């Protein structure tokens, strides 16, 4: 039995926000992080379930994909537009998050709210230039995902809930790549890499390269990105940039992998994600590997 003394299930956003304004309360949706990881229950006695707020939508309008806080990993992984946007990097991240049972419960917004550096979907959201819409008693604010994370399990979110995540539909064609290195099919990443590229006439004109599980937050490797812009989308470029990635990451050692292993594999994962985005992945590398 968990030490929870009250459970609220509000049906309006206003009610939910008012409930969350009190100390000692937190948001529950899928519950797959909250109920099993004691770090999220520190100082928490009461939970506010947001699943009856009608936020389980994924909609496309006015140039945005809007993913409500209640949308599960499974629905994200199966959404036709998310499956094609930038080679489906977000759908693929969602499809390797935990086991099938977990993906039926866990929400994309919850994966963001948990703010673990090893999470499978925040790198894709950052690479796709996504925003989080946060709601609190002061009203709504919009935070770009690349400035949302502060440290392990820490974000800029105060006593707020994530109402939805928004991804702008790009004007130009962007391509993407996602590569996860994990111990087993359902384990969290030891290292993951997500890339989006704009390529014109064989030259990289815009790029995002985001590494997971190798820093206190999902890490945009900005120096590597700078080194990619204006360069040919080719193997030589990626090999050279992989060295910059290795220097930019700040991994730790834990029971899954040593810091040294993570640093080396960061280069490998980055190259493989970039190859996918450039359409150069050899057979067997078109997809993530567990």
């Amino acid at each position, binding site marked *: 039995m*968990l030490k*929870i003394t009250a459970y609220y299930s509000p049906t309006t956003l206003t009610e939910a926000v008012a409930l969350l304004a009190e100390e000692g309360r937190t948001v529950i949706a899928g519950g797959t992080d909250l109920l099993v990881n004691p770090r999220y229950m520190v100082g928490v006695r009461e939970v506010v379930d947001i699943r009856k707020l009608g936020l389980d939508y994924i909609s496309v309008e006015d140039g945005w994909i809007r993913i409500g806080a209640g949308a599960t990993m499974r629905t994200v992984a199966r959404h036709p537009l998310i499956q094609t946007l930038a080679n489906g990097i977000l759908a693929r991240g969602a499809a390797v998050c935990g086991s099938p049972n977990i993906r*039926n419960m866990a929400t994309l917004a919850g994966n963001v709210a948990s703010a673990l550096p090893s999470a499978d979907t925040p790198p894709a959201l950052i690479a796709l230039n996504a925003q989080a819409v946060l709601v609190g008693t002061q009203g709504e604010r919009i935070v770009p995902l690349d400035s949302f994370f502060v440290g392990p399990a820490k974000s800029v979110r105060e006593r707020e809930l994530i109402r939805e995540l928004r991804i702008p539909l790009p004007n130009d064609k962007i391509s993407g790549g996602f590569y996860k290195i994990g111990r087993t099919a359902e384990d969290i990443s030891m290292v993951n890499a997500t890339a989006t590229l704009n390529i014109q006439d064989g030259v990289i004109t815009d790029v995002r390269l985001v590494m997971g599980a190798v820093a206190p937050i999902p890490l945009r490797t900005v120096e590597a990105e700078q080194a990619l812009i204006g360069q040919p989308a080719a193997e030589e470029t990626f090999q050279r940039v992989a060295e910059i990635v290795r220097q930019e990451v700040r991994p730790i050692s834990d029971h899954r992998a040593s810091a040294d292993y993570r640093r080396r594999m960061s280069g490998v994962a980055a190259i493989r994600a970039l190859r996918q985005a450039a359409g150069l992945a050899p057979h067997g590398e078109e997809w993530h590997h567990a």
Partner: protein
Amino acid sequence: MPEIEITLKVNGRTVTWRVQPGETLLEALHHHHLKGTKLICGTGDCCGCGVILNGNSINSCCMLAAQADSGDLLTIEGLAQEGKLHPIQEAFAEEGAAQCGYCTPGFIIRTYAFLQEHPHPTEAEVQAALAGNICRCTGYVKPVAAVLRAAEMMQSGP
């Protein structure tokens, strides 16, 4: 501590349960003598506590009982009808896909949800579908064979 009253359908029967705010769905099942669903890891990592809620297989260890209010729940106890095993259960028995048996309800529940959506699965699809179910004694070859056999049995009818 304020108890919460929930009403849900469990294996076809509507029940009203009083649950604690911190009680997991798995604990509530056990309190109501539905003990076929097992507690193994308790952290959502092994799928041993699998149940089907509103058509989706989920882990009952990492969901609050209160969250199952007004849901439609199927547990391992609900599969056999009038003393006759479900074809999935028969297939697991015939293939010897259980050794100590503790993880088996979770495998069977996951298989049930999977075969509803994929009645003609390939071996690779079965392996992916069972990737989250952990067995520490017999392994995975026989469970995969059992799922493929169950799919055949369910096609040919009872």
